[in-house]
């Protein structure tokens, strides 16, 4: 099955070759878990702070048993924040 993997900020360096604009279509075995993908691409677990499947947060404890489905979007960020415009 294919899913979309999106890696942002400093994690972009872990995207496969040929990826553009922070994302890549990747081929996975049916039923692969979130954690399997993170491991497959060598993402350091400590840096996988915000892990979203189709925009929904997956807590670290759920990542091993959360199975991905075809065309899911898995997006990952290190710890980030913004919030805004400190002029306001």
């Amino acid at each position, binding site marked *: 099955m294919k899913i979309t993997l999106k890696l942002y900020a*400093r994690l972009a360096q872990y995207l496969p070759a040929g990826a553009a604009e*922070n994302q890549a279509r990747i081929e996975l075995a049916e039923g692969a878990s979130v954690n399997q993908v993170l491991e497959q691409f060598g993402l350091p677990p400590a840096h996988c*702070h915000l892990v979203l499947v189709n925009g929904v947060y997956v807590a670290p404890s759920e990542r091993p048993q959360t199975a991905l489905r075809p065309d899911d979007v898995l997006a990952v960020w290190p710890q*980030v*924040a*913004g919030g805004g415009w*400190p*002029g*306001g």
Partner: protein
Amino acid sequence: MGWAGKILRVDLAKGSCTPEPLNAKWAAEYLGQRGLASKYLATEIDPKVDPLSPANKLIFATGPLTGTAASTGGRYSVITKGPLTGAIACSNSGGYWGPELKNAGWDMIIFEGKAKKPVYLFLEDDRAELVPAGDLWGQTVWATEAAIRAKHQDPQIRVSAIGKAGEMGVMFACIVNDQHRAAGRSGVGAVMGSKNLKAVAVRGSQGVRVRDAKAFFEATTKGKATLAANPVTGQGLTTYGTNILMNVINEVGALPTRNHRDVQFEGARKISAEAMHEKRPTDGKANLVHNQACFGCTIACGRMSQLDKGHFTVVNRPQYWGASGGLEYENAWSLGAAAGIDDLEALTFANFLCNEHGIDPISFGATLGAAMELYDMGVITTKETGGIELKFGSAQALATLVELTGKAEGFGKELGLGSKRLCAKYGHPELSMSVKGQEFPAYDSRGIQGMGLTYATSNRGACHLRSYTVASEVLGTPVKTDPLATEGKAALVKAFQDATAAVDSSGLCVFTTFGWTLDDIAPQIDAALPGGWTTQRLLDVGERVWNLERQFNLAAGLTAKDDTLPKRLLTEPAKTGPAKGKVNELGKMLPEYYELRGWSKDGVPNKDTLKRLGL
């Protein structure tokens, strides 16, 4: 000690500048800056005054840590009754101006009345002088700063000024210092313009003392180490700035797009921090040049950007070829997604012009988005716009209108009304995406429920800087909560509101709270000030400030009915993303919030609450 102990009262009508001692009792209760100046304002003006009348006052205030080596200790606020909202306004700015005021020996400046002719205040240590500003009237913020520095022959003078927008009463005009740092929201610049006050120029050489220099050094050094070790304040914000959020908020389905018609923007990535780092195909250079810190800041989230000289916005306009303040998340959103525009260079240009002319990019972009929806509906046509095709996604319209709005010319004058008045004028008040007349920032409360309550209850109208529950609901700081749930959000909002009010009163930047709690801040304040400052005392200050602001607004005529959201967010479900099918469930959160605050069902603070807080 922390406080300079002295404030300057400027009667613009009389042309007098009078020093007076800082009210020490109030300082002990309200700390400084936002809290303390709000106390002065609430005590000194009738809350019912017309914000743009001479009876309103305009206060520039620093906090006790402003001008010290505490990380981010470089802030000041402008406090007044806001014209956009009719509520108390407090807009916070960084850069170098606030510390300069403190270094000149002043905690705050209170402007009263209205000058007969345009003036600016020149303050050099103890010397205060109102200088005729007829030649500066009509000038941009940037030109004003250069002219004042040249006139007084001191390039180190710091200037806080309005552009033509403030002079002309653009309802979201702001006050800009150091090229691109602004007391941005609620139209404080229009109040300044209504007083015929062009600028406040400051030069200080007296310095800031703290109660216990050794303890202060230890506390601030520890604080800096904590920020440096934190992945957000030590690396994330430093490297990517706030606009790292663009893709995050889009992914969670809370990026307001095309005047909140949509909650996800297909062009989000093109205007994100990641894109700012990439080389442009046109000239091979990145939009982002460097990061910049405000005074004392060890985070340095500020962006410095440089445009592609060949871009249509600046071709043949070399005055915009240098680096200047780049896109923060809110601005990238408001100038971009809110109007459906994905041209990073055009957004950066618009951002430059917002700073140059002194308008709030959030309210400007959101108002442009609302106008585009009216255009899309056929309510506004090229007849009204003077030929401008106001289509969603038009970078050309953005570039043209940011300049017209900054100069309050043509259709820019209409946009200068702000979305509430503009939409009402064209018969569609429901299309103004605002609370109490102030436009939303960059989070759709259908996808982040707590932000709905944040916006509805914010004392200065819709605002993310009063309680940033996004930190918890999306970013997992300090703990992750479910953005689509309403349970527990009332308590979360109250906690964020009180803590933020305390930080805003200290002279520090609220961004430190990504790495610090009040437990990190209290020792720094305690070392700077006499009287013993603990986390609990700061929380008390925060709650006191919040209730003081609330009391002001109630006295100004606002009621619980104003604690609400536009119909669209309460009734039109999100179309895509995780929040698809959801509306904001404010009704589930608001009563609980009132109760937690110790307020009546009508949102009025109970007697016990007021007594407990010494109000």
